[in-house]
């Protein structure tokens, strides 16, 4: 009999269970996808190549997701419980035991949870491929369908079932011990009015000001103390989030009180009703709104900052690796005694060997081989040396880099590499400043000397610098060929390939960006899921009020507007301060760029922020529209019952 009752209840309470079902299904989809990503072959190979800590971070994200899921499930179950307290109390009054009622409720939620688990896993199969598709195209690999991991499947089921059992245990505890009278009168518990409203108005403004102030301090910290103390940065971030939370609570309790005050005595139509409803719902949910505001701040800030950092790293490859391909081809070893002639011969052989290897993958446009000579500084007992390079070698380097070397310089001059010089070569302080550490990235100062001056000197090391055609090629295979693994299993890193380093940066940054976007998406969905549940629950509780208003002569259109304003305001509350954070965030991102030597036009930064915020608000509007439609159907049904 109880099985029948439970199945019938799920069918009858479809709209309530639909929200629960969708929320749980989406969360499971997310967890299943990220578990598959962690266990995927491509991720395993990337983790070996790039950054081994990433896997731990991704696993951490999954653990965090499980916690969030526990929260969502707990909330969703509580939503269902709240809606049905009276019904359960009636069952009790009619003579059912608490054990029966717990059984019915558990069975109902288990049925819905089981369906959501199945649907979530199915959706996860598709969502995982989509995520991997985006990620693979981001790191510029050819996209193929990736396999699924049984471990991910198992891990997802174990995690979500454990979380479900935990939240079920909490609900069972509640049903076991709550008094029947409290269950019966659940809908008669009056909302408390705001205490100390003026104080909350002050707190709202203090929260907003505090957010701005601590972001300002954070900017100062980025400028001055970033490398000195991370603790201060951490404290400032906590203070910003705390201000966001307090500001949001203040908005809920103080600003809605101000709205009521402003409407009082002057309200027309359903204005007063709407204002009071807003005040009531915002006040009784202020803590929840504060927590969601913090999550939304992370959603707005996280992707923007990571996107900026990621694009900076990608840009940096251009500066760090100035040749398309370069590598040390010196065969000199410490203390080895070789002649200049021997070195030259070996170099010739090696250059032929390496250029042949490169040309298997991509055409060579030009190349230069240059030797670096170290000349001991006279009377310097510390072992300092001058770096020398032949004039002819320097000419070849310039050719590879497409730099025009001014002929009027002659064949002998001092040169200093400087990152701050963007145009090739400029005279300053009696030396030639040239960009991008023109020799290798650790050579800052050197002397260009006539070729004859190096005659008879054994070079300290030689370098092969190659310019290749601007086409797509299998850079990963070339990298493996140029830097083979030795007999001990250690990879040689003699050659640097700019394209490979770019992909490497994309891969490393991409992992973090993916993780961050993923976490943000989860936070956003979680926030909107909770908000939707809350909004529907509020409307459900307020149905009698809408009925009274309708009986007193309020038009349906007025009631719809009132409901929409309430839902819109309630839905926007957790977004108000996070959206406001966009303004100081322009400065933060500008500092991130300028601190790394990049000039990002302000309009582009604003565009980036507006883009992310629009996506967030777009998803929010979708949820709001869906919740409004469901809520209005609920109210209309209730009005029809009065018809």
């Amino acid at each position, binding site marked *: 009999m109880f099985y029948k009752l439970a199945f019938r209840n799920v069918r009858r309470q479809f709209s309530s269970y639909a929200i629960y079902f969708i929320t749980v299904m989406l969360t499971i989809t997310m967890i299943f996808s990220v578990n598959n990503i962690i266990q995927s072959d491509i991720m395993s190979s990337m983790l070996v190549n790039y950054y081994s800590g990433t896997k731990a971070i991704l696993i951490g994200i999954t653990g965090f997701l499980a916690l969030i899921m526990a929260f969502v499930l707990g909330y969703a179950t509580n939503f269902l419980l709240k809606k049905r307290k009276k019904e359960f109390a009636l069952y009790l009054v009619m003579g059912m035991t608490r054990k029966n009622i717990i059984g019915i409720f558990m069975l109902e939620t288990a049925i819905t949870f089981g369906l959501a688990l199945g649907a979530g896993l199915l959706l996860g199969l598709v969502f995982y491929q989509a995520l991997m598709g985006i990620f693979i195209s981001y790191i510029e690999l050819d996209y193929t369908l990736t396999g699924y991991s049984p471990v991910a499947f198992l891990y997802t089921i174990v995690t979500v079932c454990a979380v479900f059992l935990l939240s079920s245990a909490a609900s069972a505890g509640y049903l076991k011990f709550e008094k029947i009278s409290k269950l019966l009168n659940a809908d008669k518990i*009056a909302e408390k009015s705001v205490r100390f409203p003026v104080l909350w108005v002050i707190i709202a403004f203090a929260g907003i000001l505090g957010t701005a102030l601590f972001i300002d301090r954070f900017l100062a910290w980025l400028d001055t103390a970033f490398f000195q103390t991370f603790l201060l940065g951490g404290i400032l971030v906590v203070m910003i989030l705390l201000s966001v939370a307090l500001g949001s609570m203040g908005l809920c309790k103080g600003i809605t009180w101000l709205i009521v005050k402003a409407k009082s005595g002057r309200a027309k*139509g359903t204005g*007063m009703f709407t204002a009071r409803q807003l005040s009531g719902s915002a006040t009784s949910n202020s803590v929840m709104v504060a927590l969601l505001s913090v999550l939304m701040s992370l959603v707005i800030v996280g992707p923007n900052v990571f996107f900026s950092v990621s694009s900076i790293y990608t840009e940096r490859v251009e500066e760090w690796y100035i040749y398309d391909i370069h590598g040390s081809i010196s065969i000199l070893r410490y203390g080895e005694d070789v002649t200049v002639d021997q070195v030259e011969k070996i170099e010739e052989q090696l250059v032929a060997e390496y250029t042949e290897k490169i040309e298997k993958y991509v055409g060579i446009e030009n190349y230069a081989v240059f030797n670096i000579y170290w000349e001991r500084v006279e009377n310097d007992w510390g072992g300092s040396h001058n770096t020398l390079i032949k004039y002819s070698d320097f000419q070849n380097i310039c050719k590879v880099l497409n730099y025009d070397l001014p002929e009027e310089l002659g064949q002998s001059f001092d040169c200093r590499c400087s990152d701050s010089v963007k145009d090739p070569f400029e005279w300053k302080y009696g030396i030639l400043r040239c960009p991008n550490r023109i020799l290798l990235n650790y050579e800052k100062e050197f002397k260009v000397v006539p070729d004859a001056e190096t005659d008879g000197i054994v070079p300290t090391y030689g370098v092969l610098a190659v310019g290749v055609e601007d086409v797509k090629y299998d850079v990963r295979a070339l990298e493996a060929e140029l830097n083979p693994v030795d007999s001990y299993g250690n990879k040689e890193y003699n050659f640097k390939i700019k394209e490979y380093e770019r992909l490497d940066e994309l891969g490393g940054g991409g992992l973090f960006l993916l993780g961050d976007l993923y976490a943000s998406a989860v936070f956003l969905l979680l926030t909107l899921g909770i908000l939707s549940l809350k909004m529907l629950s509020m409307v459900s509780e307020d149905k009698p009020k809408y009925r009274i*208003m309708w*009986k007193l002569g309020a*038009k349906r259109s007025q009631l719809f507007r009132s409901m929409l304003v309430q839902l819109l305001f309630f839905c926007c509350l957790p977004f108000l301060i996070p959206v406001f954070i966009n303004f100081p965030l322009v400065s933060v991102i500008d500092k991130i760029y300028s601190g790394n030597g990049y000039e990002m036009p302000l309009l582009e930064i604003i565009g980036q922020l507006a883009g992310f915020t629009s996506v967030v608000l777009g998803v929010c509007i979708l949820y709001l529209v869906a919740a409004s439609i469901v809520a209005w159907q609920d109210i209309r049904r209730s009005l029809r019952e009065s018809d």
Partner: protein
Amino acid sequence: MGKILSVSNAVKIFATGSVTVRALAGVTFDVEKGEFVAVMGPSGSGKSTLLNVIATIEPLSGGNITVDGESIVKRSDDETAAFRRDKLGFVFQEYNLLDTLTVAENIVLPLNLKKADAGHTLSELTRISHALGVSDQLKKFPRELSGGQRQRVACARAVISNPAIVLADEPTGALDSKNSRNLMELFGLMNREFGSTILMVTHDATVASYSGRVIFLKDGEIFTEIYKGDRSREQFRHEILEISEALGGEGNVL
């Protein structure tokens, strides 16, 4: 005095699947402006249905009803809302006050819905709240009031917009006898002082005896109607009781 309410051959049929119930089977009566009319009858006689069709909460299946000279049948949704707002005042058994609004905000709600200006709203609030003895409670919320006080507030809300007719559905149903008497005296006051036309559904003879006319319903039809005339309230109550007993009604509760 002119006719304020005219019910002619009102029929209401409820259909649930294959089962149809004729709740009103052709009810016809008029209510004059300033009249205080009670509707009585045993359970299932159609008295609440009658009130609901007059209030446009339920649509009529047949016949016609006019309020203040205008037919309320076959109107659009917005027109019926405007009709309820402009022509009707309600007093419900369960008060139906909005617990999120203060007493003052509850009382002025009909004026707000009419978009009356703030000055008029405030003066009417002062006048009505004083007359009905709730002026000390204006800043409180309904949950802070007793049942009797809540019903007074509901009465104030019902008359503040000076409606054509006040409809009361078992207004004393949730009150004890003392508060019920007080409420009926208040209805008398509303009728005399504000000239309110009142149509009240009740199953209590004593409550009905405060009215000037009682319409008895049985099986969805008017069984009989009696007028108080010059008789005392007690005499009127006796006659009501006699008819109620003949109808098999619950009789006297108050």
